[in-house]
Each structure stands twice: as structure tokens, then as C-alpha cells.
């Protein structure tokens, strides 16, 4: 039943403060870079801050904070529980 409660959405549609677990990263040239920064399946990501006018997002990965552009976040699919 739990799977019914979960939604898969791109990281950029999370609200500030909202968490999601990495489900998948779409194919892109910088995917190895994302993976080596610890963005792998099952990692919990939290959106901390957003730049103005669709600027970058500050994402909490584990204990650290990463800045990613909005369109990069589009490649990262996270699972959220509703």
C-alpha cells in the first residue's frame, strides 16, 4: 500500500524545506558529477534555498549543501511521500 502514497517528481518541483529520496537521474553529461557528489539512489535531498528569478537551488545532500541549477534539478527524479 505504501507505494501508492509515493510520488515521483523532478527535484525542482520540491518546495523549500521539502524532502525527497533520489529515485533516478536522467541521462546527461554531468550525471557522473552528480553521482560522485553523493546524489545516488536512495539519498535524501532537501531543498534549502532558491535563487531569485529561477536561479540555482541549494540542496542538502546528507550533511552538506550543494548548489544546482534549476534545469539540472530537472534531471533528478525524487520520490516523496504524500
Amino acid at each position, binding site marked *: 500500500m505504501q507505494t501508492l502514497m509515493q510520488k515521483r517528481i523532478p527535484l525542482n518541483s520540491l518546495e523549500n524545506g521539502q524532502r525527497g529520496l533520489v529515485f533516478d537521474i536522467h541521462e546527461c553529461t*554531468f550525471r557522473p*558529477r552528480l553521482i560522485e557528489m*553523493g546524489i*545516488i539512489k536512495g539519498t535524501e535531498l532537501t531543498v534549502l534555498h532558491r*535563487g531569485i528569478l529561477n536561479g540555482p537551488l541549494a540542496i542538502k545532500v546528507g550533511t552538506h549543501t550543494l*548548489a*544546482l*541549477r534549476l534545469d539540472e534539478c530537472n534531471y533528478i527524479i525524487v520520490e516523496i511521500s504524500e
Partner: protein
Amino acid sequence: MKVDGNMRIALIGNPNTGKSSLFNVLTGLNQQVGNYPGVTMDRKVGSCQWSDTFRSDIIDLPGVYSLFPRTQDERVVSDILFDRDHKDYPELAIVLADATNLERNLLLFTQVKDLGIPTILLLTMEDVAKRSGIQVDKAILSNHYLGTPVVMMNTRNGNGLRELRDAVVTHSLSVGDISLTAAAYSEMLGNQVLEEADIHRRYSGIKEVVSRAVSISEKDQATRSYRIDRWLLHPIIGYVVFFALLLLIFEGIFTFAAYPMDWMDSVFGGISRYLYDVLPRGPLSDLLTSGIIPGVGGVLIFVPQLAILFFVLSILEESGYMARVVFMNDRFMRPFGLNGRSVVPLLSSVACAVPGIISSRAISTRKDRLITIFVAPLMSCSARIPVYTLLIALVIPEFRVAGILDSRTLVMFGLYMLGFMSALCIAAITKYILKTQETSFLILELPEYRMPRWRAVLVTVYQKIWVFCRDAGKIIVFISIILWCLSSYGPKSESILPERSENLHESYMGHLGSLIEPVIRPLGYDWKIGIALLTSFAAREVFVGSMATIYGSSGDKIEESGLLELMRNEVFADTGLPVYTLASGLSLLVFYVYAMQCMATMAVVQRETGGWRWPVIQMLTLGALAYLCAFLVYLIFS
């Protein structure tokens, strides 16, 4: 193994793990900054006396997240570690790992370890870990990684240095277990599928050991940095703080630095005049007083401004704020083909394009970096200030605009804005011309805020100043000597020309000036300005000195020297019309905004881009633009 010399120990680690502070702790000021051939990364080497009998070289390698490089600069690390015959190939690696983020840091550690290099794992950020309730069991890590020595150290205050020393002195030089050869690695490089597989494989092993070795007593969820960022990354307050800092930097560069610069200017003028008086006349003393000393002075005059700039920038860097600057500006730079990391190079270029272009190394995409380098010289550098000041005083009448604004200040401000706006426009155009396969991306760590350590800040300022004097200095002095030769000798005279101001027309320089006069006449310039344009290649502020030489004026201050009066009275020989009018003056000002007439900048672009192609394209493009705009301005105002 090496037969002679010291053993080599490399410091390897992610960015922001305390690598450079450890380097400073181990080597003191006993370090050298050099260059890797072909790449632009600083090569930092020092030496450390570990015990009475054991001394080693320490090599500080650039911070990387894995052995798969993202930038050419990061390639330095894999190039060295994959090549046993490389002169920097380490006999021992100290891999630094941030204890608060062990998973990601162990990725790099396992890669280095697998190459068979004897490795010590150094856990850093002990203080932050303690504060966040993170505990690491060193024994579990050590056991899991086949007895690798694991040491905990606070690189900021040196706590734990003793344990590190023991580990280094007693480590065995035996080659570790090579589970992956350099050749196998090299095959993976650039192959996305293999790279990803390697990282995934490592992470699953790391996750397992970390789950056993690290315990977190969760107590502080909203971290200090998060709370600070709520202000500093705030959509309004964040930018207010950023612009206040910018103002502070400009105030420092333009106002505070003026005092030591004036002082140095008169000291060098004084030395020249003193030597001119006491030394017997001759080519050698003339070369010294008119070529070498002004040349050296022309380099050192930049030091106060650069020291202030580097000081502020390195505090921002050390504290962790610089990453936030990148975060806040990325959105605004992207439409122009630049990225958030272009802010520092452009900002630094207001002092001097040379350190500005060097600092573009932090930009990870080659295209963004090239564009940044291409437009950096358009930011009005401090060498242009004396030129602007002289010409504005010469041709711009002084009056109040709208009752409060001074006309001359306004023109000065306008020239800076013209440079900045043109930089953005040209960047936007270049963005469409440059073809690239790379996608521009920004994956940037926002490190925890920390108090800057003053010692580290001062070391950075000192090193950057030294690199500037080395890189720009030798070129400026060299060009000064060449220019001295050209203006002291002429085709008709075998020996040195006495009384340079009157005889300048006879010199090679005078001939060159006359040669280009037809080309620059449409802009409203005469052969004397032609000479000053050529001599500006040493450094643009030489324009003023050349004018003083040409018109035979003397004195340190422009106002006192009578130079303005002499220039104002100058007329074209053929037409009898004044040379310096509003039209020709503005035209010359615009020319100085655009033209890339600086050999030091060209040389540094050559080095940073790895060939003469870019500096030549850049000089021709900006030169053509300068000519065109100056011509238009002259047409409009005459």
C-alpha cells in the same frame, strides 16, 4: 623509488577539506608556487621536517571529488597519480577526508588507495564533526581498508599533528594492494558508463563501512550555515549585503590604495632622478633611470591595490561566502554566456586583468571560461585610471550636471560602465559564435561558514602578489626596456640620442609613431599619440609618462608639470588645428576602454588558453572594436 632527494608526499582531498591549511601547517612559509607545464593550476610544493632524520617534500594537489577530472585543472591529479614516472608521483599519499561527510570523501580515498600508492587517511573537520554529534570509529575504517593508518586531525589548530607525524614516520613504503591499475583507470576516463559504474560500485562498499564506523547523535538539524544563509541568500537582504561588499572592495581599491601608490610613485621618481644626477651619463645609466627603474616601478605600483583586492577576496573565500556569491550571480550571468564563477574574474579585472584572468581557472566549463577571459580586459583596470584622469582633465570642461554631479566624475563613471556593459554584450555575442559540445553546468558545494584564519589569508595574499610580480612583472620590465631602446636610438644615429624630448622624432619610436599616423589620423590622433599608444603595451599608465617625455615636462604631479598646458597648445603641423579637442579626447578615451594594449594580459591569456590563438584573436577583435568606436565618437563630436 627515488634515489636522491627527499621523499614526496602528496596531499589529496576534496575541496574545502582543509588541504591548504594542512599544507601551511606542515611547510610553514617554506613553499613554492610554480606552474604545471601545459596546465594552469598552481603547483604548490614545500618541504616538511617530520623528525630529526626524516624530511620530505609536500605536494599540494588541487582539490577534486574523484579521479575522474571535470576540468583541465583537475586532470593534474589523475595525470600525476596514473603515471609512476611523473616527477611529482608521490611515494606516500595523505588523503584528507571531511569527517562530517565521510561517504563522499571516501570515494576519492578508495580510488587513490586502489592505485597501490601507500596511503594515510586523515580525517579533518574534527571540530565541526564534534559539534554536529558525529563520531567516527577509526579502527573500523582502518580494518576495512586493509590496515590503512587513520588519523584524526584539526588542520586549523594543528591538533592531531603528532599522530599524523607518527603515522608518516612509521608508514611502510611497501606498495599497497593494486586492485585497479592506472591503465584500467585511464580506460574509464571520459567513458560515462564506466565512470558511473565505478562510482556506484565504490559507494555501495563505502555505505556499508560508514554505516558501521560512523554514529550520528542527531541534535542540531538546522545548522548554523543554514541560519546564516537565510539572510545571506535572501532575495533582497542577500543582494544588499553583496553590493555593500562590492562597494567596500571598490573603496579599498580606489581610495585606500591611492596613498601607498602615490607614495611609491614619488619614491620611484625620486630614485630615478637621484641616480640620474649621481651616475655618469651614458647608455647604461640612462637605461637604468629611464628604462628599468620606471619599469619595475610600473609593476610595483599595482601591488597595494592587488594586496587589498586579494585580501578581501581571500577572506570571502576562506569564510565560505564566495560560493554564495557564485550562487547569487549565476542566474544573472548566464544570459551573457558567463556563469556565477565569472564574477570574481571580472571583479578582479577592475584592479588588473592579469589576476582576473588567472582566477578564471575556477570556471569548470571551458566555453564559459574562454568567454570570461575574452571580456575580462574590457573591465577598466587601474592602469587606465591615470590615462582617464589626464584626458578628462584635458578635454572635459568642468561643470555641474543637474546641480550636483560633477561632469568629470560622470565621464569617469561612464567609461567604467561602458567597459562593463561592453563586456556583457561581447560575452553574449561570443556565446553564439563559440561552438561547443559541453553542456554548461553548475555543481557547487556551499561549504559551512567558518572564521577565516588570518595566517592563511596572509599567505594567500603574499603568494598571489608574488605570482603577479612574476607573471606580469617580467613582461612589463622587458617591454619597458625594449621601449627605452626604441626611443633612445634612431636609424640615423649610432649612439644614444641625448635630450630625448626634442630628438624623439628621430628615434625608432618616433618613426613608428609617424608610420602609424595615417592609420590613427581618422580618429583625431597625431604621431605623438601614436607613440603613446605603442608604449602603452608595457602597461597602459605608461601613456602618461610617454606624454610627459614627449612634451618634455617634468614633475610628479600632472597639474604641477605644465603637461596639460603643453598638450592643450599642441596643433597639427599641417592644418594648425588643435590636437586635443573634445572629439579627439573622447575618441582616445573610448579607444582606451576597448583596446587590449597590454602585453602582460596577452601573455597571461596565452598561458591560460594554451596558445597564441586566443590572445591574437582577442587583441584583433578588441583592437578593431576600439578603432571603430573611437572613429564613431570622433565623427559624432567633431
